[in-house]
């Protein structure tokens, strides 16, 4: 066999090597295979259409062998036709019954029209199809697992968080990943050995340990469960206190710094010590004395004493004596 000019030229343009190969199929066909092949096929076709001719002898050895290998059990064909007819009738009856139920759904008038024979009623109740034993046990779990697996398969690779932290860091920043991932701060020597949870404002809650094999043998690390609800209550309380302080500060700041000047025109302005002193200067001495008489206590006396130097105190004592002496002589 030689390639035609077109095919040969095309092949030569792609590969001289392949163009030089003999375009010959090395397979061999059994002698006389094609001689009566059309007649054999025709016989086969006739037999498939219900003809009485025997098919076996004309089949290829390979096909005959397969038929022998897949031969049905003895007695398989006995009553086969009757069985098939029964099944066909049952299937047809099933579809009729289904049509009847559809008619019932369509309306009462149509549902009453076809009288369903008792035999068909029985057939309708009989399950035509059967699921394998135990098929429905755990079916939802299996479906869920398959759905999750499908999700995992279809999830874009880019959105998948790497399992390893180092790997993730390498993806985000190779430079950062090249640095040693060690916290440079240090802890005072023996800090953790001497650590007493009771000295901390919020003591660590240690749940009673379960006797696991690791803890029983003393080789495993102790697990300290974190009680989520308690910590969340604390967080809420802390947040409430913080908000309260901020609100109070805000109101106070508003009154001191931002309130319109018209509102404080007639009040004492305390923006600076000078303003405070000038405001106090307007208060009469008698008013101050009256106030101190009714509001001072021992701690105030000590405060006043600490503010007065020794000489002034001695003078005050001497003056007091002089006053007392003069009163006594009088």
């Amino acid at each position, binding site marked *: 066999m030689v390639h*035609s000019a077109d095919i040969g030229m095309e092949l030569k343009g792609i590969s001289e090597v392949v163009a030089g190969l003999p375009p010959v199929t090395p397979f061999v066909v*059994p002698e006389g295979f094609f001689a009566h092949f059309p007649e054999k096929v025709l016989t086969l076709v006739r037999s498939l259409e219900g003809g009485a001719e025997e098919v076996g002898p004309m089949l290829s050895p390979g096909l005959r062998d397969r038929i022998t290998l897949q031969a049905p059990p003895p007695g398989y064909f006995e009553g086969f036709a009757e069985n098939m007819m029964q099944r066909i009738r049952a299937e047809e009856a099933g579809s009729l019954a289904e049509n009847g139920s559809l008619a019932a759904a369509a309306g009462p008038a149509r549902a009453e029209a076809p009288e369903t024979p008792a035999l068909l009623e029985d057939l309708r109740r009989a399950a035509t199809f059967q699921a394998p034993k135990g098929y429905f046990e755990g079916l939802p779990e299996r479906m869920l697992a398959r759905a999750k697996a499908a999700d995992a398969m279809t999830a874009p690779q880019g959105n998948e968080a790497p399992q390893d932290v180092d790997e993730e860091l390498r993806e985000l920043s190779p430079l950062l990943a090249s640095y040693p991932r060690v916290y440079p701060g240090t802890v005072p020597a023996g800090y953790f050995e001497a650590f007493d949870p009771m000295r901390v404002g919020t003591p660590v809650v240690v749940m009673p340990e379960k006797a696991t094999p690791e803890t029983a043998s003393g080789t495993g690390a102790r697990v300290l469960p974190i009680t989520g609800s308690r910590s969340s209550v604390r967080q809420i309380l802390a947040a409430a206190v913080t908000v309260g302080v901020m609100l109070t500060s805000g109101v106070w700041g508003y009154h001191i710094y931002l309130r319109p000047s018209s509102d404080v025109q007639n009040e004492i302005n305390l923006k600076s010590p000078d303003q405070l002193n000038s405001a106090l200067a307007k208060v009469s001495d008698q008013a101050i004395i009256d106030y101190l008489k009714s509001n001072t206590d021992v701690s105030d006396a000590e405060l006043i004493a600490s503010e007065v130097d020794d000489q002034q105190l001695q003078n005050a004592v001497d003056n007091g004596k002089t006053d007392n002496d003069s009163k006594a002589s009088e």
Partner: protein
Amino acid sequence: MANIADDKELLLQFKAPATKEAAFTQIVRKYQEKLYWHIRRIVVDHDDANDVLQNVCIKVWKSLDNFREDSQLYTWLYRIATNESLTFLEQQKKRAGVSFSDVETGLSNKLKADRYFDPGKLEWKLQLAIQTLPEKQRLVFNLRYYDEMPYEEMSRVLDTSEGALKASYHHAVKKIEEFMLNH
């Protein structure tokens, strides 16, 4: 290639009940060898090729009444033969529970198991090279190299654009060249 006028006459005869069987016999006789070799190059083994060819003939008998004459009978027959051959390989794969690469390995083994296999002969080496190709490239190479089928017809047989077929053929030839030089 095929004589279209003859095919039209045969199709007319097939539609008449009196001449149906005679027309069918003539159609089979006319195309049996072309179809057989096309199938044989896909499934390799003669018995398998015979089974597939018989299936193709039965399909032709059943479907020829519905054949639309807007395509050539020759193209239509090749299309059925290709589909039946691939279905056969697919069934083999399912029956054995192996992947398609295992089927391809199996095809190479079938080649080597042939009574006439001679690794020293170029034509057998070429067959081994063809078995290393992906399925589509293998089909395209066989149809072009052995059957000398025009790309236009091939596109109807394989339902693929002519451009894609040319590219497949190019890749197939290059891979075969590489195989021939390195093995």
